[in-house]
């Protein structure tokens, strides 16, 4: 996985150092973009608990990381796309402002954030959301490619 760059007219030792540095830089950069560039979907939820331990709001206005506010009525859910792991959710309901920061687990794609839980002080107010894989309808296979049918030329 190293990048054999032609370090011409150099001693073997210097060459080794240069290559080591390149590999290190490659890995560091990969790690940085991998961690800080990863997108997650936040599901913002305004539902009352089944056991009544917390109640939803009639209406609320929520913004993630200071973005444009979303309006949620009772039992409504909306989603927000976020990048990176540390996020702030701020919402306003019944004239009161709630705000909380949290750090997402890296591996999860979708996170369910329950705003009533947050307001009621239940920790954690978020949980990974894993939907059951929806059984797809009869496999409609896309046509597989073939060199016999050259694609139209186009730019």
């Amino acid at each position: 996985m190293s990048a054999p760059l032609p370090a011409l007219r150099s001693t073997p030792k210097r060459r080794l150092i240069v290559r080591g540095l390149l590999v290190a830089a490659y890995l560091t950069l990969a790690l940085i973009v991998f961690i800080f560039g990863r997108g997650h979907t936040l599901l913002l939820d305004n539902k009352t608990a089944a056991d009544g331990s917390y109640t939803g709001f009639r209406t609320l206005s929520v913004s993630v990381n200071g973005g444009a506010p979303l309006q949620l009525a009772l039992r409504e859910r909306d989603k927000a796309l976020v990048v990176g792991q540390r996020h702030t959710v701020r919402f306003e309901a019944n004239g009161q402002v709630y705000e909380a920061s949290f750090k997402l687990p890296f591996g999860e794609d979708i996170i369910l954030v329950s705003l009533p839980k947050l307001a009621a002080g239940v920790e954690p107010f978020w949980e990974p959301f894993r939907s059951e894989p929806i059984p797809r309808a009869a496999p409609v296979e896309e046509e597989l490619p073939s060199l016999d049918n050259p694609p139209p030329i186009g730019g």
Partner: protein
Amino acid sequence: MQKLKEFVTDFGLPRIIIFFFLIGLFVAAPFVGVRIDTSISDVLNRFGQNAILVLALVPMVQSGCGLNFGLPVGIIAGLLGGTLAMQLGLSGWLGFAGALAISMPFAILMGWLYGQLLNRVKGDEMTIAMYVGFSMVTFFSILWLLLPYSNPTMVWGYAGQGLRTTITLDNYWGQILNNFLSVRIGESFFIPTGMILFVLLCALIVYLFFRSKTGTAMTAVGSNPDFARAGGVSVDKMRTISVIVSTMLGAIGILVYQQSYGFIQLYQGPLYMAFPAVAALLIGGASVNKASMVNVLVGTLLFQGILTMTPSVINSVLKTDMSEVLRIVLSNGMILYALTRKTKVSK
């Protein structure tokens, strides 16, 4: 042992692997529920369809012009012959013969022009041939739309003008060669005798041609141009003749292919037709500058055999259609092998 080794290096490892692979496929076929008789019929049919297109490559290889990636030039001549014969309302044997007859002047003219071009670019023939082929196919795509064809089976119904992408040969000369003297045993075994005889006839004619004075001169030009020139042979003339013969065979090849397939394919259809033909020739043991009738026949049989057998056998074993990948890798891998092998220029 030494002899075996020599044979392997001479014949080339890839070819031997392909050969045993095909044998393996045939052995495996009954165990996975693929009928051998259907398979053999398919292989014979596809062999007949493609053999003349492969044969068309030989003259140019022999005269030192390399692999004729510009085969579409000949194919276009054949398409012109076929469509014009249909336009004239010729059908049956008259139709097929008419298509052949009409395509020949086009093939000779185009082949001559193409030969003149290739004589000016010695050493770079293959890349240029490829792009000449591509240009011809796209240029004729325009003509298929614009030429004043009017036979209703050929033109688009709603526009009343411009040829269809595929034209059926059902009431013209579809399968005419295949059915001639054909042998049918039971439901699924069929030998297209007529077509195979026609292929063998063409191969024989080309074989005899290379025994003639012109033919030997052509081979001499291919194996050592300087020597041939010193012997008083006109290099350019021989090369031009080889290109013309190649183009004519290309035209015949596509007409035979189409009568068996049952359709004329126009527009982008012929764009990549040279590549499988080239692969087949190379699998048969030809190199970039040497090819024989045996190479043509064995190569076509092996290549088409693999193309026929892999989808059915591999699919029933793996439950997935890998044959496409196999086809691409096999045919292009074979061409790559031939292009990268250290070839002795003169022998």
